């Protein structure tokens, strides 16, 4: 629908800029497209009324967040509340009215406008805000279709920007096709921004119209790179802890669930407090109880994790259009994340110990600012992650994204054994000796003996840490391997580095060792305890490439 509108307005719009004869196809298409949107939304515009539903839903979500605090009171007073309709009816009615009014007001005061390369948003009922967001500053465009939008053909458009201040804009309820067009527009703007050498002039209008269609179709050619079946997602649920996705979604029902379980258990005559009473039961009995419960918990957690995995990644597709990678997935709320190749900062290939057993890999394409969000559902939705793929698929994807990389063939150099000396000899052993001597001195032999197990385990982890940690580099990339039992591989183009650090303690200086850190927009990569020469070589090479490269990091 918007497409016809777009081309219809083409002729009406003339450009202020001077037109030149020599032009590329690309730029003419961009300018044409850009013109259209400008024509369509020069004026301040409201969203579709369906957005009221969205604002109402976010209000309810916010309310549920608050409800957790008063939930215990509600449960205790449950009976009283149900028996007194005069008490709760007004409250519910007031709440519903407030909900309706706030949603309508929010809708009424939310206005947007597209002007030259910029999206402007006015919002807020009491606290007014006016956001001015140039397309070139938008980091990430995300389309989201909540379940209640599925039938209406509308979508939420979320625009993220990178920067010290976190700035996010969410436009609820744009027609899906228009949102897609706008997204294309914003991404096209980047292309233009990045190809500054290319001719930026506009083509005469006639040819704009003629090339318009062909470019549009070529732009829509999507190549599918990867899909994930439900089986893959179940494997992913088992190997990765995706439980918090599920827990996050079901947080409002926690109290109910707890009350329900407690009730059921007591129906079967199980009293948790009594079962663990050491006065009435032997050590063995309690131990078995604990073991059973742990297994049950593990089973339930795994089940929840599988649910979480399916919820986020259902119908997973990773595809490519031009230099953009698009991830789509989601069972209830469909997420679409688009990333331009130039925005990619680092590839992470993760394999936990369970992944190693099952021969699966989690591949992550890290964009900048990912760490800003921390470990939240949001972060996962903003990242392009390919869950639980086979090593062959992973290799294929990595080579597709960075054809020049040698991650699979490169030889890793191990970090120095001094790493072990430091953590084992200077930290773990003295701590162990101290604990043991105090325990033996106070004659707690049993505890002293059982303490050996965790210390041996930590020691094992330190040794594995050292064994896994390695680095390599070639002409364009730095590779880092690390992990404990599982292995993670990090690979980043050298010119993406933002800042470098070299660290050396006096001890390390004596043994000619150093620790280097590479700060990227997607996070920091540390290589500890490598030889001083190698460290300086790596840093000199990095700085040289960063400073001589004219490529933009984003």
């Amino acid at each position: 629908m918007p497409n016809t509108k777009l081309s219809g307005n083409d002729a009406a719009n003339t450009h202020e800029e001077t037109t030149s004869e020599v032009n590329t196809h690309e730029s003419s298409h961009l300018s044409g497209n850009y013109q259209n949107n400008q024509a369509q939304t020069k004026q301040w515009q409201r969203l579709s009324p369906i957005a009221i539903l969205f604002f109402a839903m976010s209000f309810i979500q916010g309310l549920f967040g608050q409800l957790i605090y008063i939930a215990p009171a509600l449960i205790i007073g449950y009976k009283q509340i149900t028996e007194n309709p005069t008490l709760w009816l007004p409250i519910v009615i007031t709440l519903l009215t407030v909900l309706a009014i706030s949603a309508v007001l929010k809708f009424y005061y939310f206005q947007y406008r597209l002007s030259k390369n910029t999206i402007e948003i006015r919002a807020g009922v009491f606290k007014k805000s006016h956001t001015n967001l140039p397309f070139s500053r938008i980091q990430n465009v995300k389309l989201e279709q909540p379940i209640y939008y599925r039938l209406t053909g509308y979508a939420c458009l979320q625009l993220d920007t990178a920067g010290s201040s976190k700035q996010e804009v969410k436009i609820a309820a744009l027609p899906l096709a228009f949102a897609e067009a706008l997204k294309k527009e914003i991404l096209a703007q980047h292309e233009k921004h990045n190809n500054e050498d290319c001719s930026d002039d506009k083509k005469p209008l006639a040819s704009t119209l003629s090339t318009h269609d062909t470019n549009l179709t070529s732009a829509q050619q999507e190549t599918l790179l990867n899909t994930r079946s439900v089986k893959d997602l179940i494997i992913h649920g088992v190997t990765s802890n995706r439980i918090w996705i599920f827990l996050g979604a079901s947080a409002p029902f926690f109290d109910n669930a707890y009350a329900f379980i407690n009730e059921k258990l007591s129906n079967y005559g199980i009293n948790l407090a009594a079962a663990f009473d050491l006065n009435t039961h032997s050590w063995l009995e309690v131990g078995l109880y604990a073991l059973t419960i742990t297994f049950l918990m593990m089973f339930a957690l795994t089940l929840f994790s599988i649910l979480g995995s399916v919820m986020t990644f259902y119908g997973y597709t990773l595809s490519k259009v031009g230099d953009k990678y698009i991830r789509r997935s989601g069972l209830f709320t469909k997420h679409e994340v688009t990333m331009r190749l130039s925005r990619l900062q680092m590839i992470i290939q993760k394999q936990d110990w369970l992944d190693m057993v099952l021969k699966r890999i989690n591949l992550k394409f890290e964009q900048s600012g990912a760490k800003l969000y921390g470990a939240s559902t949001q972060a996962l939705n903003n990242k392009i992650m390919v869950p639980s793929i086979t090593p062959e698929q992973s290799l294929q994807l990595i080579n597709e994204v960075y054809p020049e990389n040698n991650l699979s063939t490169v030889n890793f150099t191990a970090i120095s054994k001094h790493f072990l000396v430091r953590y084992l000899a200077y930290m773990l052993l003295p701590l162990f000796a101290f604990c043991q001597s105090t325990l033996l001195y106070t004659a707690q032999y049993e505890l002293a003996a059982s303490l050996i197990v965790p210390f041996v385990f930590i020691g094992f982890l330190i040794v594995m840490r050292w064994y896994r940690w390695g680095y390599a580099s070639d002409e364009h990339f730095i590779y880092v391997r690390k992990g404990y039992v599982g292995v993670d591989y990090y690979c980043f183009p050298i010119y993406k580095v933002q800042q470098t650090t070299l660290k050396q303690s006096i001890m390390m200086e004596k043994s000619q060792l150093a620790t280097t850190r590479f700060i990227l927009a997607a996070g920091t990569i540390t290589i500890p305890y490598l030889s001083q020469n190698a460290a300086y070589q790596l840093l000199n090479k990095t700085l040289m490439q960063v400073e001589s490269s004219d490529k933009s990091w984003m």
Partner: protein
Amino acid sequence: MHSSTFSNQLIDSQTLPDLELLPKQPLSSRYAKTNMVVILVSTILTILVVLAVKYQPFLEIPAHITNLLGFAIWLIAALGFIMIVYRRLADPLKSYALREHDLSYSAGLVFKKTVTQPIVRIQHIELKRGPIERKVGLATIQVFSAGGALETFQIPGLPLAQAQKLREFILRHKGSIEHA
């Protein structure tokens, strides 16, 4: 394809810039002195406050708290002394270096650290001057990159004129800021 424009001709390795041979410039001598005075004054002031509490005539203080206060005075004095000794040794080691394309800052007594910030990756610069820094004519230069707030690069204790020159140099540097 995406790094095909990059050329990498063979260069005589003797002429390559080396971080190891960075000529280091010391901070202003006023920086270490100011720190010393600040620590000394704040230690003495804290001790005076504790003393005032201990010997004030208005309130009766239980004996064990008076003992504790006596101990606190010694503790504060010791901490102040340690800090002065540490600063005395560590401050002169702080240095910075400006090359054509990057800015480095080195510091550390036991754990030595050199941070290098390529100028092309700088997003914005700030000169920060607290009341004490203003009094003694010093400035701290802060440089932000996309590496995040935790990785903010900063050089303290620069004479104001020098800090301003540094900022000018970075702003005029070809290729910086415009990427941001």
